[in-house]
């Protein structure tokens, strides 16, 4: 990913780092040039983007268009669709299970967002000069990112086990009698949220580390000469100057968490009594579309989700002017 640049006089307005807005800025700048390209160059250009473009078109864009058209149909058992207009959308919006899934998804997303400030704090600690064994720490925190979600889910499932889980053993030391965390409707979504925080900290931390290393050392030198302590430096220099990264991480975290599926599927699953209080929108989509064969209904579910993601992301982009400093 591209890194944000810190204020320099010759580059104003500075190019924002996050991919979404960065791409539009890039396109605007290169547009006048395309006319000058010789035909041969254009041909090679298209040839080089062809593998990605074809993959994207056939594996993402075309299925998305198909899914959109499916959302207006009702499916037969083995193929065959009948057009039913907006029926699916009406049914989705009236389905209390969808409402509950939406609440669960927002709770999960909200919890996962806690990983953002935690990652900033960790990155700041690991960015201190002269810290010994920094490579070891960074590897340790990054480990969850390269671990299979299935393995993570399995290990956490054991930790959360009501009878012999380590979590309850630990609570037992303090005389607290723990419950079956993943099987209780009131605790399951939070238990999964904690795993989500734990597993996304590492990735976010690396992004923040990169952001912090782009901050010129002079700022800190100047600040310390003026008598600012480490905490003050962190809040007055580091935090404001990494806001472009923070913005990017927040946008991506929200988009990813709204599509959460694997942890719910692997850690709770359809037979748990807690599933209705833990299922996310995408899990509901899987259950309706793949297990119950109601493809049209499931397609409508994901398009409602797409709309929600779109609105939330647009809102984040609007709101960024208030707090993101591009220098």
């Amino acid at each position: 990913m591209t890194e944000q640049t810190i204020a320099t006089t010759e580059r104003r307005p500075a190019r924002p780092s996050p991919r979404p807005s960065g791409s539009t800025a890039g396109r605007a700048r290169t547009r006048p040039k395309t006319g000058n390209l010789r035909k041969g160059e254009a041909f090679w250009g298209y040839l080089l983007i062809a593998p990605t473009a074809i993959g994207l078109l056939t594996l993402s864009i075309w299925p998305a268009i198909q899914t959109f058209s499916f959302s207006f149909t009702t499916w037969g058992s083995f193929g065959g669709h009948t057009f039913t207009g907006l029926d699916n959308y009406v049914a989705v919006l009236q389905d209390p299970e969808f409402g509950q899934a939406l609440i669960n998804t927002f709770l999960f997303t909200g919890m996962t967002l806690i990983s953002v400030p935690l990652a900033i704090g960790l990155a700041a600690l690991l960015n201190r000069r002269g810290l010994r064994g920094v490579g070891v720490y960074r590897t340790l925190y990054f480990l969850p990112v390269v671990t299979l979600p299935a393995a993570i889910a399995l290990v956490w499932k054991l930790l959360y086990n009501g009878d012999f889980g380590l979590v309850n053993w630990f609570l037992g030391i303090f005389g607290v009698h723990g419950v079956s965390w993943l099987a209780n409707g009131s605790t399951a979504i939070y238990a999964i949220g904690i795993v989500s925080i734990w597993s996304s900290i590492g990735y976010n931390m690396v992004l923040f580390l990169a952001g912090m290393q782009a901050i010129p050392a002079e700022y800190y030198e100047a600040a310390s000469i003026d008598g600012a302590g480490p905490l003050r430096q962190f809040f007055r220099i580091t935090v404001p100057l990494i806001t472009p990264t923070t913005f990017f991480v927040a946008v991506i975290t929200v988009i990813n968490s709204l599509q959460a599926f694997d942890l719910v599927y692997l850690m709770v699953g359809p037979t748990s009594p807690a599933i209705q209080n833990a299922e996310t929108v995408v899990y509901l989509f899987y259950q309706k579309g793949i297990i119950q064969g109601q493809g049209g209904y499931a397609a409508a579910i994901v398009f409602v989700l797409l709309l929600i993601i779109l609105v939330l992301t647009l809102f984040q982009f609007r709101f960024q002017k208030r707090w993101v400093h591009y220098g």
Partner: protein
Amino acid sequence: MKIAPSPRRRRVLFSGLAAAASVALLLTGCSSGGSGSGGKVTITYGIWDNTQEPVMKQIAAEFEKANPDITVKVQLTPWDSYWTKLKTAATGGSAPDTFWMNDANFAQYASGGAIKDLQPMLAKSSVSMSDYVPAQAKAYTYKGDVYGIPKDVDSIALWYNKKLFQEAGVQPPTASWTGDDLLAAAQKLTDPATGVFGIVAQSTDQQSYYTTIPQMGGQVISADKKKSGYDTPEAIKAITFWTDMINKYHVSPTLQAQTDTAADNMFEAGKVAMIYEGSWAAAEFAAVPYTKQNADVAPLPTLVKPGGVSNGLGNVMSARTPHPDQAWKWLEFLGGEKAAALQAQSGIVIPAYQSAQDAWLKSPLSKTYNLQAFIDDLKVATAYPSSEATAVWQDAVQTEMNKAWTGDETPAEAAHNSATIMNKALAAEK
């Protein structure tokens, strides 16, 4: 923790492996039998139970000996992903040539045209549907035509831990037990000091309410498959029978505890003294030294009247197989005496082929367990409840029942909600 799912059990441990496999299978789909060039034809056979895989391969080898021009390829897909994969493959036309079917899903596949009507072939064949358990022969008939050849049947019986019974000074269960005897024994066997419960009240349909509803004189689905029977006093009593064991008498672990540690594993660890479990569990329990030594099985206690539920498997043919003649030969062989005998001797399943059931009673497992209990229960069992839209209502009903098990809803509330869900799905079928 166990990874292998038991046949037909809907409560399964979600293992990472199975989930990863399901995703991989979704992506790759499945390839149908090879080309018939050179006279040699390959027939694929989809199954889900890894404990039965060796027997199935043995039967395939016997078949190939008799039919040198046909090769049978057994394709194992774990239960967790079997139906998902099969449905995708059947829709796309790449389902295995022949595959396992169960009572719950049969009507959907037959009405959807995904499996072949076997009636024309049956007419010219030596296979006679009267050789099979009548309920299963009927279960694989759709609108008067046979679409599947019954493979095996199961029944539920009362498994108990001899050692725990002896230690608590309780007489082992007998065929004359009633629901009250069961509860009294469970209360005596429950010991908070050692963490042992008298019984485990599972919420998995077949091992719980599907068994007790007919015993209370009710029914899950009406005979014409148009109406739910959940909102009857009999059904509500049958559900309360189980929920009381958890929430009133405290003689069973909670459903939450069973979600963390599967009920079978609790029984295998000596943490529960009794469990309603299927005939398929015999091989599973015998594989664990503790239950091999300490467990045995008795016929179900009678509530209001004798009864129970029996699920079964059938062998079916994909409607779009390129080799229907060879596939039929294979189905014929699978439905025959020899295949039934091989399955019976393995002891894993009760063959649907009735005359082979004696061989099952003499299988090596009979030296460990009183297998006759299952045959006794099979005689009074009714067919597994199903309709064309089983998949739509079955899971939703299970979710409702779970709420009664955890005490979030009363049994009456859960029963009425279940009836509403089911009646709506049944009405949408036609």
